[in-house]
């Protein structure tokens, strides 16, 4: 179907030259799902662009991209148009951005069918409905008349898939199709691609930075590093026993819900200016020797039953990734649980936050009665899917939004106007604000674009009224702790890499020695190996005993690394809360169970109590004002769940907001036997 042979792409720019791809060779056969894995800058998207003939200006190519025997690189415009319409179709990373906002999704799909498939309008509409049904969109007839902004992210991605498959292309390319989606949705969407391959015999090229999450649906994976293929082979084998040190580093950089420690690989991907003469991974590789530095390893097949596994490395590794390989596990060894007696740094009591809609009545109820208490030295993990109120909770703690009812205090003081509490003003308030610091999700966006790094880090010290020399000394000290070079002080945010910017963000949070640091998804915008480096930094910071930390994440596994306690948030409510190991190994609430079951795991860490809870898919934004918030999606729902509000009750060491917890184990067993 698709066969890429020795594809090299050199991009010439007036000020520099980039070797985007060097001798990339791999094939995608009909009915096969191939995963293209690697960090950003590795050349994944460049491969996708080459396949559909959309290389950027100034690109020099050599090698061939054969699609059904024809070389895409040598097609003229007319042949390319036909190739893009019926040969290969792309699903983009940002589905809502790829859909035209002013036309209904049904209309966009119908138009495409009429143009490329020469259907009549009425038949095209029927076909569109069937396509929507095929990708798991419920009530497709109604969805056809929806505008893109009326769809959730997962729904929009499904529409995108139906648009791409609508013209029956032989090859479906998905560029990071699940980035930004929740764990439960990610699984659903990935399964759609598997179906496209199995049911219709299509080839699928699945591009992702996350090997663990796509391994399950792929037949084979191709690992790219700095524009070179370092390893390719059967997905299951590569995932279980990766041979190339980079593949191993990639997998070990990702925290795992099973509690396997993260190992950070130092350094970053080199930007190649020409086809490399040596192994591009040499500077970061623990096994590198003189040969690796001078010669480029040839791609050699591995002894493997399928005979399809090849690695470009002089020192291929064998065996599964085990804990033994990890020299410095990033786990937190503090004394957990002793914090109860200390005074609370953060106290939230039955806080509600309602965002009033600007026009008329109504509004969005983001938090519905959250109570949390945190003492110095403690780290609280907060997990939940997007829209559960995580970010609102961060803003509430930081005093950026006021609670509609209830109260929130940091170090016993109130940062925003709230009923029945005095709020400090002026300089006192400014000083108090620096007691709680936030580390943002978007590391570069959280730095003022026209302020130098030195200025940004020193910001909290200004409020404290420190002299310039004192500020410079404090900044220098915190810079050392973040392992940043002094030279970075004079730079501007756009000159920083994501990892550097996040270190600067953490430095700014630390510099004023606050009582509380809130990490709001600090690694979700970073590359996998950079994530591991930043997580190591954060683990170090949260281990300080004189400070409390809140770590907010949609990724359960990152939280497990260093939180003492964890709170699971669902639609603005805490549904489960307890010590991190208890919640992860022995989850109580059906929602926690479902989340943990959807999280990808590396081999060797079994899921807790065998059978998993499957939530009913596609939540239709059920706004449960009475009763359990999960009632619309929970497979064990009863009338009691729908009518009675659920409060946190103690079950062993943790607390869960579900009255059926004692019966759940039996119920889950029944669900597994009668699917």
């Amino acid at each position, binding site marked *: 179907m698709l066969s890429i042979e020795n594809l090299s792409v050199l991009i010439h720019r007036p000020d520099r030259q980039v070797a985007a791809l060097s001798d990339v060779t791999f094939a995608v056969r009909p009915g096969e799902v191939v995963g293209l894995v690697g960090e950003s800058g590795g050349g994944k998207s460049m491969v996708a662009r080459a396949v559909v003939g959309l290389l950027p*200006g100034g690109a*020099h*190519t050599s090698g061939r991209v054969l699609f059904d025997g024809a070389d895409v690189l040598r097609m003229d415009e007319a042949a390319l148009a036909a190739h893009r319409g019926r040969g290969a179709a792309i699903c983009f990373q940002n589905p809502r951005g790829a859909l035209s906002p002013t036309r209904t999704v049904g209309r966009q799909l119908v138009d495409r069918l009429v143009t490329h498939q020469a259907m009549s309008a009425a038949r095209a509409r029927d076909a569109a409905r069937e396509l929507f049904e095929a990708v798991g969109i419920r009530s497709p007839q109604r969805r056809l008349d929806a505008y893109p902004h009326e769809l959730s992210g997962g729904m929009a991605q499904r529409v995108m898939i139906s648009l791409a498959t609508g013209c029956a292309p032989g090859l479906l390319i998905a560029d990071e199709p699940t980035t930004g989606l929740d764990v439960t949705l990610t699984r659903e969407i990935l399964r759609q691609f598997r179906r496209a391959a199995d049911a219709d015999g299509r080839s699928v090229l699945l591009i992702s930075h996350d090997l663990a999450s796509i391994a399950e649906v792929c037949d084979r994976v191709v690992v790219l590093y700095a524009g070179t293929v370092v390893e390719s082979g059967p997905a299951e084998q590569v995932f279980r026993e990766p041979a190339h040190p980079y593949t191993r580093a990639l997998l070990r950089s990702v925290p795992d819900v099973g509690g396997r420690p993260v190992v950070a690989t130092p350094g970053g991907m080199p930007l190649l200016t020409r086809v490399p003469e040596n192994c591009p991974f040499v500077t970061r590789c623990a096994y590198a020797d003189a040969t690796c530095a001078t010669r480029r390893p040839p791609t050699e097949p591995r002894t493997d039953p399928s005979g399809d596994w090849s690695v470009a490395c002089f020192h291929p590794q064998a065996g599964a990734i085990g804990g033994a390989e990890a020299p410095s596990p990033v786990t937190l060894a503090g004394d957990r649980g002793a914090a109860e007696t200390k005074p609370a740094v953060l106290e939230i009591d039955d806080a509600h936050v309602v965002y009033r809609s600007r026009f008329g009545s109504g509004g969005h109820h983001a938090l519905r009665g959250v109570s949390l208490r945190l003492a110095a030295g403690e780290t609280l993990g907060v997990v939940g899917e997007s829209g559960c109120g995580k970010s609102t909770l961060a803003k509430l703690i930081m005093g950026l939004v006021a609670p509609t009812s209830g109260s929130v205090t940091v170090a016993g003081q109130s940062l925003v106007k709230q009923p029945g509490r005095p709020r400090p003003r002026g300089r006192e308030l400014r000083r108090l*604000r620096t007691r709680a610091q936030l580390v943002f999700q*978007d590391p570069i966006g959280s730095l003022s*674009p026209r302020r130098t790094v030195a200025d940004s880090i020193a910001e909290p010290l200004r*409020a404290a009224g420190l002299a310039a020399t004192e500020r410079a000394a404090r900044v220098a000290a915190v810079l050392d702790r973040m392992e940043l070079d002094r030279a970075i002080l004079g730079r501007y945010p756009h000159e920083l890499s994501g990892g550097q910017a996040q270190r600067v963000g953490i430095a700014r949070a630390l510099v004023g020695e606050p009582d509380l640091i809130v990490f709001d998804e600090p690694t979700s915008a970073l590359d996998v190996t950079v994530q591991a480096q930043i997580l190591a930094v954060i683990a170090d910071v949260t281990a300080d005993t004189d400070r409390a930390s809140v770590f907010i994440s949609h990724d359960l596994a990152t939280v497990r690394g260093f939180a003492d306690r964890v709170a699971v948030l669902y639609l603005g409510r805490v549904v489960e809360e307890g010590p991190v190991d208890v919640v992860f190994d022995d989850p109580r609430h059906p929602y926690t169970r479902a989340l943990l079951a959807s999280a990808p795991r590396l081999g060797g860490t079994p899921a807790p109590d065998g059978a998993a809870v499957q939530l009913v898919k596609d939540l239709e934004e059920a706004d449960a004002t009475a009763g359990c918030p999960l009632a619309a999606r929970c497979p064990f729902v009863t009338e009691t769940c729908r009518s009675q509000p659920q409060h946190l009750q103690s079950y062993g060491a943790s607390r869960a907001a579900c009255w059926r917890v004692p019966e759940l184990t039996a119920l889950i067993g029944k669900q597994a036997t009668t699917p």
Partner: protein
Amino acid sequence: MTDLRTAGPAEAPKAVRGSRDSRFSRVLIITGSAILMLVAAAALGAPLVSSWGATEIDPASTLAAPGGSHLLGTDSNGMDIWSRVLYAARLDLGIAVAAVALAVVAGTLLGLVAGYRGGWLDDVLMRAVDILQAFPTFILALAVAALLGNGTVNLIITIAVVNAPAYARLVRAEVRTQRELPFVDAAVTSGASTVGILWRHLLPNSLTPVRVIAPLNCGWAMLTLAGLSFLGLGVSIPTAEWGAMISLGAADVVGGRWWTSVPPGLALFVSVLGFSLLGEGLQERANAKRR
């Protein structure tokens, strides 16, 4: 398929869009700056390259044709056109730049406060700006000139008032998008004061469009100034000013004595062109950066 592994010839390099744009913008910026520097040099060096004063009358020759002791001839009052065109550059350039600077400062301050505070203050300030913008430029200028009277300072104020609303709007729009970005939250939680946030974070990040528009605006300001003078609302008569000179010579042009009006007109044209090229170049460069 296996024996076809010969590497294909490298494609001819396609034109790279980004680089062509940036080269184009550089040409524009350099040309514009060169023209403006020439005009500024002429203005400053007027006493060196002209033998007559700006308002010096040569009673011996009125409406003399170019040549002889008067390089570009004289006007109906016997004043040397070449000298006057050079001296006028001082006034025209000075007033235009000063007026735009004043407009930028006033408009930016208004926009900054309105954009950051929002609410009723935003509404009040922006409606005031709406009212200012609803008047045709010359009517507004007429009103201000009538209110404050003639004079250089008043002209600057007039032209600034006409131009300030645009900056208020630009900056306000920019601030409104900027203040939703995480770095503003970061400044708030770092204990920055409101003035600190406005001055150190929002202002430097909101000035990009202003930097692009201001040079273009200097060109327009010159035209406005010339227009006001032409209508008799600008400088008082003997003062050397291009618009006033064109106005003065208009009647003579009809009689075939083109040198009275054409040189100041050309000077005006060249200066405005300089500002336009500079502004366009800056705009191109800003666009290229955004891509």
